[in-house]
């Protein structure tokens, strides 16, 4: 679409750092298309959500999937791990899960006559924190350090987590029984929050007639390797941003801070997340720069869980705010 020769520059900047990543932009495009295609085969009729979750992972962010039970949250998470070729652990959060069940614990090894750290399920490249809001806040916060610093500390010793490290958490809407709402600090660590929603009738028909999803999941093969994922992630960082676009993002952020409907504004981390998400989306759309459409597409999933209506003490209803934000802020200054 754009007649810009970014390619030469991209490759030259990469060759200096990584040898294995000297790949043309076209291959990145193909890889992304393959990924989307593979995931589309498993989760039917949810292309936007699939693209958003890929964008989230390409932007090195953690993903929160919120929806009712049985909507395919776990399926999507599991399928992502499979197609990206990442090591995968699943933690089922229940109300009695403790931090040591997640991080791991130091136990006494009788044979070595010594204390030994046994790694918990967190030590994987992609961790699925299933039904994260069923655990108590204490256990939820075991993820805080892991998600931000990509390391865990046990008995005063910091241990790095494998790279790349992604957390995909699923949660039921907090209005459901037996849930503990995630604290704002935890929410802020998720780059995106998406909802899957009911499938379209056509997609659902296909789902009903098609084979067992679990079998399909088993058959899913990784379409890219770690190096290729690394290339994609670096390509996201190299997407360019123009002044008018930064102005637009700043106007959005400013509106959330001064508008009366907002209990509090977007944090600088929120603004960064908006740009990072938009960059990843621009890459998926095969563009070298971000356009306002990218921001508009990713904005709801990035800001909804970071905003709260000032009249809403319980902390729901960020969705309307995101629409308000989009509708009230002019794209062009």
């Amino acid at each position, binding site marked *: 679409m*754009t007649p810009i020769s970014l390619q030469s520059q991209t490759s030259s900047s990469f060759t200096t750092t990584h040898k294995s990543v000297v790949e043309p932009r076209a291959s990145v495009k193909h890889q992304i298309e393959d990924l989307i295609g593979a995931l589309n085969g498993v989760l039917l009729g949810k292309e936007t959500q699939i693209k958003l979750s890929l964008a989230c992972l390409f932007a090195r962010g953690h993903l929160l999937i919120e929806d009712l039970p049985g909507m395919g949250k776990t399926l999507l998470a599991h399928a992502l791990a499979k197609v990206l070729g990442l090591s995968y652990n699943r933690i089922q959060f229940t109300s009695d899960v403790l931090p040591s069940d997640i991080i791991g614990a130091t136990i006494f090894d009788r044979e070595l006559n010594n204390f030994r750290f046994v790694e918990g399920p967190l030590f994987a490249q992609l961790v699925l924190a299933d039904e994260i809001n069923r655990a108590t806040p204490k256990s939820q916060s075991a993820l805080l350090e892991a998600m931000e610093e990509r390391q865990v500390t046990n008995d005063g010793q910091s241990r790095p987590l494998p790279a790349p490290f992604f957390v995909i958490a699923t949660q039921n809407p907090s209005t459901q029984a037996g849930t503990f709402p995630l604290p704002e600090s935890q929410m802020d660590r998720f780059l995106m929050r998406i909802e899957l929603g009911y499938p379209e009738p056509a997609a659902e028909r296909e789902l009903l007639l098609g084979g067992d999803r679990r079998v399909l999941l088993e058959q899913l093969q990784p379409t890219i390797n770690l190096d290729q994922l690394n290339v994609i992630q670096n390509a996201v960082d190299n997407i360019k941003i123009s002044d008018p676009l930064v102005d637009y993002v700043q106007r959005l952020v400013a509106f959330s801070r001064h508008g009366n409907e907002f209990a509090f504004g977007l944090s600088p981390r929120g603004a960064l997340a908006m740009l990072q998400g938009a960059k990843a989306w621009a890459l998926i759309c095969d563009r070298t720069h971000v*356009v306002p459409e990218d921001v508009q597409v990713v904005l709801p999933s990035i800001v909804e869980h970071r905003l709260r209506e000032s*009249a809403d003490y319980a902390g729901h209803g960020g969705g309307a705010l995101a629409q308000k934000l989009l509708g009230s802020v002019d*794209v062009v*200054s």
Partner: protein
Amino acid sequence: MVSKTNKPKVGVALQIPRNSLALLMIAQVVVILPLAAHITLWIVAVCLMCGYWRTQVHRGRWDYPAGWIKTLFVIAAVLGIALSGYRTFSLEAATSLLVLAFALKLVEMKSRRDAYLVIFLSYFLVATAFLFNQSMATAAYELVAVIVVTAAMVGMNQLHSQVRPLSSFWIASGLVLQALPLTLVMFLLFPRVAPLWSVPLPSSAKTGISDRLTPGDIASLTQSDDLAFRVVFDGDVPAQRDLYWRGLVYSNFLRGTWSIAQPLQPIRIEPGKSASVAPNQTLSYEVFLEPTQSNWLYALDTPVQYGSRMDLLADYRLVSKEPVLSVMRYALRSDTKFRADLSLPPHIRARETALPPNDNPRLRDYAVALREQTGSAQQMIATMLEQIRNQQFTYTLSPTTLSRTNSIDEFWFDSRRGFCTHYAGAMVFALRSADIPARMVGGYQGGEVNPVTGHIVVRQYQAHSWVEAWLPEKGWTRFDPTGAVAPERVESGLNAALSAEDRAVLSFLSNARMGSDNFIGDILQWTDSLEHRWNLWVVGYDATTQLSVLSDLLGKVTPNRIGIALLVGGGVSLSLVAIALFWRRRPLQQHKVERLFQIFCVKMARQGLQRDGDETPVAYIARLAALAQVDTNAMQAVLQQQLYDPQAHFSFRDAQWLRQELRKLRFRLAFTTTGTAS
């Protein structure tokens, strides 16, 4: 007293926000405070009680008063004011009623509607305060009060969940600041219409020199450093000894007290026909007289030109047709060599030689003897002054107390201690005893030059009295016996004539004012000059001054021209505010292509095809292209690239091409969609 019934509560949407309630109560205190000095104390107590009651209501401890309690309050309040000893329909009574109602409103303030009423009443009370005092300090205070009241109004419109009292103050200050230019225009240009009904004016105590003069009066005035008036001279300021500010003429004497007699008829001096020997010896000056509640004015001898609001009576004192209730500004021209009454009318001669039948016998005998001994009136006066100068007379502000009858005898022959009134009184009495027409004149002598503005300040401690005697061939002539006993009083002001003992009696401020190179004295002079400018430009800007400003500005003052001036002035002041607001919200940097696109959007909006705020440039062009049924893909690509790809090179040719393409699209839409757009 507090009813326990559960009345239906006001809905949340109509409740007064907590933040605003606090601001409202602060505003009430701020607004009532300057009025508190003019109303009785029990009303202030009622205000405090109402405030406490409303706080308890807010805390949920008490309930709002029941209907019958409120009725009781209102009746008690009206009765209370009626019994407080105000004059009927006086300003004080009206203000008391207003403040009381204002305070009582607090305990029935439930919904927003009530709160708005309180806010509007607050603005009204702010205006009321100016009926009592128009000084600069009051104006500054009331400006703050307006900001506080406005802040309370801003607080009313804040959300319950966002309690930001400080930010409402900021917003209120901004609002008041934005209103200032328009206020200025209205102040300068809006016609001063005479009120439809007269507002009763405050009945405060009369200050300054009174129409009755006992020797103690001037002494107590001397202890006050209150301002009497300020004067601006056209040209050089005359010497201190020539500044005799003539105010009152005391012709009657009874039992130690001098008082003014029945006012004489006004006279008119024809400038051309004045009896002056030297016609060029005139002084022109402007006086800013502080309110005295009386109608006499102060002038140098002898006013020959004065405004139509004033009269010159036959004893050459200048009086205003109405009492001076606020700062009065008047311009005068005085002829210093004017000879008054070269031929004395019989009724005035009778008036100025009258004495009560039998008191002060020693002085009478002394006067008759002296007259015979000296021969002429002039010679007699000279001898008396000589005696005052050479014998054991002392000038002091704390003389020995004299008895009521024969007080002048006691002073002249025994104590010989006194100040201006004693000396002048004795001299007038002696002259009248010798059948020479003489009268006591009261006013002020001297004046301090304020070095900052160059005007002259006359304060109460410069109050003075002197003698006027009628001499054949010369008419009424001024003699000042004080100048004989204490020449420095007349030459260089009161300060020089005071002993250490006298000085101890004066207030700290008076001493500071009179000490010349004192730091506090400098500050006092500076504030005095500020006050003077305030009087000159703000308080003194009355209908007459306005008319002259308007005629300078408009040439001929007609309602049409005033209307146009108001429109232009208002427009200019509002656009100033608008420009300031736009300047604050100007985009920090605008991209060239973005601006080009922006202009296109504005033009399209005029054609009825507005861009939605959240519509991106490309989406907008695509929509327009669909309407116009043209293919704009190339233009969209270039536009998006120029706008959002930081690596795209901006070239003038691209911009030109883009502009052309946009124009093409616009023209095409102008012709194809006029029907659909409207």
